[in-house]
C-alpha cells in the first residue's frame, strides 16, 4: 500500500488533481505529436477515492487515497500499402500494485472490410467496453461497472497471438462486426490484484495461464444507433501455485476468515497448524469462462447500455498436507447493469448506472446474501474545460459486500460494519 496523507491533507489531494490540471494547461498538449512518420498519442490519469466504510481498490476506508495513476503512450504508423504498425505502453499503479506493460504491439492488415488480421500483442473484445477499460477519455464514467469489468483482471486484457476481425454488411438487416482471437498471456505475479486470494487459507504465489481464446460478434441493427453483442473468452488450464497460510493470516477478521487452523490446533495442540501445515504447497488448476451479452443504443447525445455477464470457473484443488486430492468444484457468478450516459454539452457529461452482482447464485457457499451480492447505484459528472482534459466526480451507493471480494482489499470490519457503503472518486485525465 502507498503511504497515506493525513486527514487534514485529504482535501489538499483533491486540489492536487486540479493543480496538475493547470500544469497540463501550461504544457498544452497537442491533439497528437508527430515524430517523423510516427503519430504519438498519450494520456495521464490520476484518481483519488474514498469510502465511508471499506477499502476498495485502495486504502479508502474513511480516507482519501490517491489509489490509481495511469500513463499511456501510443505510437502508430500506416505504411503506403495499408499495413499498420502500432504499439502502446501502459504504466499504472493501482492499490499499491505497479506495472509497466506493453499493452499492445501489432501489425494490422485489412484485406477487405470483412477480413483483417492482427499479429502480435492484441487487445481483445470483451463486452462493449472491455478492450477500452483504461480509456478514461472516451467515456463519461471514471469507473466501469466493477463486477463486469473488475480492475483486478487488468493483466488479462491483451494476448500475444493472432486476431481476425471484420465488418460484413447484412443489407436490410444492418451489419455485423466480428473478431476472433487466440494468444498467450503472461504469468501473473503474487502481488498482482488478480492473485489476491478470496480464501485466506491459501496464498497465491503465481498464476500461470497458458493462453486464452475467444470471439465477439456485434450486430448493428438497421435501427440507427442500436447494436447487440455477445462475447466469449476462455482462459483454460491455469496453474495456480499457492501455499497454505499461517494461522494468523487465515483467522484474521474479515470476509475471508477461515477457521481450519483453529480446528487443527484444537485437535493436535496449539501451534500445530503453523508447525506442520503453514507454507505447505496447495497447487490448483482452474479454467475460466467469461461471457457477456450486450445491448447499446445511441440516440443523439445519449448512450444507453446494458450487459449481462457470467464467469464460470472449474477448480481442481490439491492440498496434500490436508489429504485434499483433486477436489473439483464448479463456481459460477453473474452480474448485470443498466447505464445511461448524456453528453449534455461539449464540456459537460453526466451518467448513471445500476449494477447487480451475485458471486453465489446457486447458493453453494452458505454465506449470507449481504456477502455474496452487491447492488451498486452510481452517478457521475464529467467536465472538460479543454478538449485534452477531463475532470470527473463519481459517487456510488452500494448495498452488499461482493465487490470487496473481487478487489481483494483487507477489510477487518467487513462482517460487522454493515452492508451499506459509499464510494467517491475524483479523476483527472489528460490526453493527446
Amino acid at each position, binding site marked *: 500500500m502507498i503511504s497515506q496523507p493525513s486527514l487534514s491533507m485529504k482535501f489538499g489531494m483533491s486540489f492536487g488533481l486540479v493543480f496538475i490540471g493547470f500544469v497540463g494547461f501550461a504544457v498544452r498538449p497537442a*491533439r497528437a505529436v508527430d515524430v517523423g512518420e510516427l503519430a504519438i498519442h498519450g494520456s495521464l490519469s490520476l484518481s483519488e477515492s474514498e469510502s465511508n466504510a471499506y477499502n476498495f481498490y485502495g486504502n479508502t476506508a474513511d480516507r482519501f487515497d490517491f489509489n490509481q495513476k495511469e500513463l499511456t503512450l501510443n505510437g502508430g*504508423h500506416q505504411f*503506403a500499402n495499408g499495413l499498420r504498425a502500432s504499439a502502446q505502453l501502459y504504466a499504472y499503479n493501482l492499490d499499491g500494485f505497479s506495472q509497466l506493460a506493453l499493452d499492445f504491439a*501489432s501489425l494490422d492488415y485489412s484485406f477487405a472490410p470483412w477480413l483483417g488480421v492482427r499479429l502480435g500483442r492484441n*487487445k481483445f473484445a470483451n463486452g462493449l467496453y472491455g478492450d*477500452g477499460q483504461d480509456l478514461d*477519455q472516451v467515456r463519461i464514467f471514471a469507473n466501469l461497472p466493477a463486477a463486469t469489468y473488475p480492475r483486478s483482471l487488468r493483466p488479462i486484457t491483451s494476448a500475444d497471438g493472432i486476431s481476425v476481425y471484420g465488418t460484413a*454488411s447484412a443489407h436490410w438487416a444492418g451489419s455485423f462486426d466480428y473478431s476472433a482471437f487466440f494468444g498467450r498471456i503472461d504469468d501473473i505475479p503474487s502481488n498482482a490484484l488478480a492473485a489476491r486470494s478470496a480464501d485466506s487459507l491459501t496464498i497465491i504465489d503465481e498464476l500461470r495461464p497458458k493462453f486464452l481464446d475467444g470471439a465477439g460478434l456485434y450486430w448493428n441493427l438497421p435501427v440507427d444507433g442500436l447494436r447487440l453483442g455477445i462475447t466469449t473468452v476462455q482462459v483454460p488450464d491455469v496453474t495456480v501455485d499457492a501455499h497454505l497460510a499461517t494461522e494468523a493470516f487465515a483467522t484474521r477478521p474479515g470476509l475471508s476468515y477461515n477457521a481450519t487452523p483453529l480446528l487443527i490446533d484444537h485437535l493436535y495442540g496449539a501451534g500445530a497448524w503453523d508447525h506442520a501445515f503453514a507454507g505447505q504447497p496447495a497447487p490448483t488448476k482452474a479454467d475460466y469462462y467469461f461471457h457477456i451479452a450486450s445491448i447499446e443504443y445511441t440516440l443523439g447525445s445519449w448512450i444507453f447500455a446494458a450487459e449481462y455477464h457470467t464467469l464460470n470457473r472449474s477448480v481442481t484443488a490439491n492440498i496434500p498436507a490436508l489429504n485434499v486430492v483433486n477436489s473439483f468444484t464448479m463456481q459460477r457468478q453473474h452480474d448485470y447493469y443498466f447505464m445511461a450516459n448524456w453528453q449534455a454539452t461539449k464540456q459537460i457529461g453526466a451518467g448513471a448506472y445500476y449494477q447487480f452482482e451475485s458471486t453465489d447464485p446457486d447458493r453453494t457457499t452458505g454465506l449470507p446474501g449481504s456477502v455474496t451480492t452487491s447492488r451498486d447505484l452510481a452517478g457521475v459528472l464529467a467536465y472538460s474545460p479543454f478538449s485534452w482534459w477531463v475532470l470527473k466526480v463519481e459517487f456510488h451507493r452500494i448495498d452488499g459486500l461482493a465487490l470487496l471480494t473481487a478487489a481483494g482489499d483487507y477489510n477487518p470490519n467487513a462482517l460487522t460494519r454493515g452492508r451499506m457503503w459509499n464510494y467517491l472518486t475524483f479523476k483527472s485525465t489528460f490526453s493527446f
Partner: protein
Amino acid sequence: MRKSLLIAAALGLIPVVQAEDAAFVANRDAKVDSLSAEQIHAILLGTQVRFESGVPVKLAILTDGALAESVVHTYAQRSLDQFEKYWKRLVFTGKGSMPQECATEADMIAYVEKTPGAFGYLDKSKVTAGVTTVTLK
C-alpha cells in the same frame, strides 16, 4: 435518409447546415469518382481502409463546425463528440490510426491535394481544382 433529416432538423436535433452542403473530396491518386453512403459510412468509421482502386484511405476530418457535425451525424450516425471518442478508442486499443484532423477547410484542401489516398469533406463552395470531387452514388 432525407425524410429523417427533415424530421430531425424540425426537432432541432441537427444543425441548420445540411450534409448536402458538403462535398466529399479525394486525392487524385485515389482514382475514386463516386461512393455510396454505405461506403462513406465505412470509411468514416475505419472499417473500409482501401478504395476500390486498391489505394489505402487516408481519412481527413474537420474538427469543428456545423458542417462537420452534419456530415458525421448523417453518414456516421454519431455526434462529433461521439465520433472523436470512437476514433480515440480505436487508436488506444490498437485498432486504428487517428484521421488527419483539419481545423479549417483550407487545411482540408491542402491535405487532400498533397496526400496520396486522402479523403475528406468540406463546403461545396470551397472545392478547388486540385482535388477530385466524389459524388454520392
